[in-house]
């Protein structure tokens, strides 16, 4: 705000001085010029009349409201002051208008507005740096779960188009350098902004993400930072100063591919849990055993190669770089887009192919050529441009590595359900039977759509039911919370409790008879409707107690007293 006033004052200084000088001299002069009143007596204009006259003259409004007709002397004087006044006036107006369209001034205005809107955010929010495809997906996901966002983006055109989008128009957004400390301060790092949950750095530029992460960790060490980093160096660098989550999409994809190779059920279940809620569930997929072909061992391919080796899967590499081919004996030099190279890599006896070059068209061409030569191939392809979604879908690819989607899903999962990584770690370390059990339970209630995840902390107003139940001499069990509190009988809500956290105790897939205590944190997966029912039951003072005791609880004060008397 101060910037705006200061800038206006500095720019308007000269025009205002000129205008005041011209105006006051003209008024003063006009009061001195002799005139005649209606009866022909000598008469001089007073200050009010003359300043009024000069004002309507200078602004070229020109009401004809003159107390008496001017004498020749007055006319001559007015004739002299007319032009300087009009010019001084236009000069001031022109300066104000040029100030309003001045890019620097507009930037200051935009910043002030952004800062004001961030401060006014009444719900929790993340600072999102970078609003490309990934950013868009992440913000949409955050909004779906009732979390807001303050957006910083380098590209001004994106911010302008955002204002036209109904989903995002209400969010504070600013075009500017995301690495600028002052902008980050305004967006939520400043201490006095209460609702900031953390910083998400997902620009296309690793270095910018790194700068955002460092800045945020230095200014607000406690605030979580989730960042995207595509090179190993950037990942290590970010981890070194405590970035809470670094997302390297290709490593994530390679790890998940590895999981799909060695433990398909685990892969499937964790894929369900991190899917965008409401999307179709991935069905079981079984990558075949045998020899694979890996086209391109760049950033993506090299990570896949490591994981293939880890899973002890034999594979043949095709690459255009002779030095990369030389490193791996038995590799084939070429693009893989032509039948000749693929045949050389013996595509007819291979079971799967990974098209991992940096070019979407090349990858599509590899997929199509390979499928023509061997239609039974299991196909994995890397997709760089999100506009090519339909092409990859039509190409018959079994698994597509979409960079922005991988980043968005991972960041969303961690940002909105902090307990999820804990659960997934547990899932990966357990044997397949745990995953299979969870898969059956989820399958039964999801109806083919990805689950919503939600966390409930039984504290403050959310613990009222537990306290009320304790005073009734009973305890609320987990199965009461997962039952439909609006009906009697065993009407189960479509959800599964994945994790119960009580202090340092963690129960995975807890039993329905588990007694709930104040302070417990619970994570559920299920349909969104179940979440609403659950929140309703927790808000109703008597619903859960009625469920636990098996008889309806009186709600009014008089009825409560009567019931207590009868009981005693």
């Amino acid at each position: 705000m101060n910037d705006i006033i200061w800038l206006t004052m500095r720019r308007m200084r000269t025009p205002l001085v000129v205008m005041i000088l011209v105006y006051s001299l003209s008024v003063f002069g006009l009061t001195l010029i002799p005139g005649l009143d209606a009866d022909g007596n000598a008469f001089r204009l007073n200050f009010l009349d003359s300043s009024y006259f000069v004002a309507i003259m200078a602004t070229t409004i020109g009401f004809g409201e003159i107390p008496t007709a001017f004498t020749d002397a007055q006319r001559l004087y007015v004739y002299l002051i007319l032009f300087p006044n009009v010019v001084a006036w236009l000069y001031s107006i022109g300066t104000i208008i040029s100030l309003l369209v001045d890019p620097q001034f507009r930037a200051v205005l935009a910043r002030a507005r952004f800062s004001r809107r961030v401060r006014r955010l009444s719900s929790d929010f993340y600072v999102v740096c970078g609003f490309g495809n990934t950013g868009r997906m992440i913000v949409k996901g955050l909004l779906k779960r009732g979390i807001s966002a303050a957006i910083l983006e380098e590209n001004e055109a994106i911010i302008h188009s955002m204002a036209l989008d109904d989903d995002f128009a209400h969010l504070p957004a600013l075009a500017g350098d995301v690495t600028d400390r002052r902008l980050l301060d305004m967006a939520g790092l400043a201490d006095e902004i209460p609702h900031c949950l953390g910083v998400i750095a997902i620009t296309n530029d690793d270095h910018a993400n790194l700068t955002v992460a460092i800045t945020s960790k230095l200014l607000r060490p406690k605030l979580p930072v989730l960042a995207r980093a595509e090179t190993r160096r950037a990942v290590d660098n970010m981890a070194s100063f405590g970035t809470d989550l670094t997302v390297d999409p290709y490593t994530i994809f390679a790890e998940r591919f590895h999981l799909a190779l060695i433990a398909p059920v685990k892969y499937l279940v964790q894929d369900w849990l991190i899917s965008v809620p409401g999307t179709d569930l991935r069905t079981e997929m079984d990558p075949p055993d045998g020899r694979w072909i890996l086209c391109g061992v760049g950033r993506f391919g090299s990570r896949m190669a490591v994981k293939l080796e880890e899973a002890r899967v034999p594979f043949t590499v095709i690459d255009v770089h002779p030095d990369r081919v030389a490193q791996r004996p038995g590799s084939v030099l070429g693009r893989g887009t032509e039948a000749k190279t693929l045949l050389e890599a013996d595509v007819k006896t291979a079971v799967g192919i990974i098209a991992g070059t940096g070019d979407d068209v090349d990858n599509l061409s590899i997929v199509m050529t390979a499928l023509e030569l061997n239609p039974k191939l299991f196909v994995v392809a890397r997709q760089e441009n999100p506009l090519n979604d339909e092409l990859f879908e039509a190409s018959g690819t079994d698994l597509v590595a979409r960079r922005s989607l991988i980043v968005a899903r991972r960041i969303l999962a961690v940002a909105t359900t902090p307990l999820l990584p804990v659960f997934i770690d547990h899932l990966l370390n357990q044997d397949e039977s745990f995953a299979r059990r969870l898969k059956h339970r989820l399958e039964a209630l999801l109806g083919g759509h990805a689950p919503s995840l939600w966390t409930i902390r039984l504290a403050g107003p959310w613990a009222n039911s537990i306290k009320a139940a304790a005073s009734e001499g009973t305890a609320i069990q987990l199965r009461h919370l997962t039952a439909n509190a609006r009906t009697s009988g065993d009407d189960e809500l479509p959800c599964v409790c994945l994790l119960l956290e009580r202090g340092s105790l963690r129960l995975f897939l807890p039993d329905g008879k588990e007694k709930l205590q104040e302070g417990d944190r619970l994570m559920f997966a299920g349909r969104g409707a179940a979440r609403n029912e659950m929140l309703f039951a927790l808000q109703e003072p008597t619903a859960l107690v009625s469920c636990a005791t098996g008889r309806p609880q009186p709600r009014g004060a008089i009825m409560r007293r009567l019931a207590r008397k009868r009981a005693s």
Partner: protein
Amino acid sequence: MNFEKVVFGFFIVLALTLNFGFFLGDIDNPDHHHAIELGAALAVSLIATIIKFGDRSQMGAVLLATSLVADLQLMVAVFVWAYAANVSDVGVTSDVLASIVSLSGGALLANLVSVTLLVAETIMIRR
């Protein structure tokens, strides 16, 4: 069967029916409106309000609010009647009666909302 629900529903519906009975008829015809019916409507409405005290659920809060509105309207109506009949020299003329009945009409609306909410809650919660 939930005993509280029976008592609750009884008083809320009775408040509405008495209120409606008083309201029915030409607005300024003293033969159509009886003071005792107005008094009964107010009494039942007050009891219905008291039963709702102490209910901390969301629906309970809204029900209490509508009940208070009905009480307020009926109390003003009763006060106007009492003032006209006993204090002022005018007596309960058709003008005065018209304003009393229109006040009870307002209360009727609030009672209708109460009953609607009760029905909605009964449909929503089937235990």
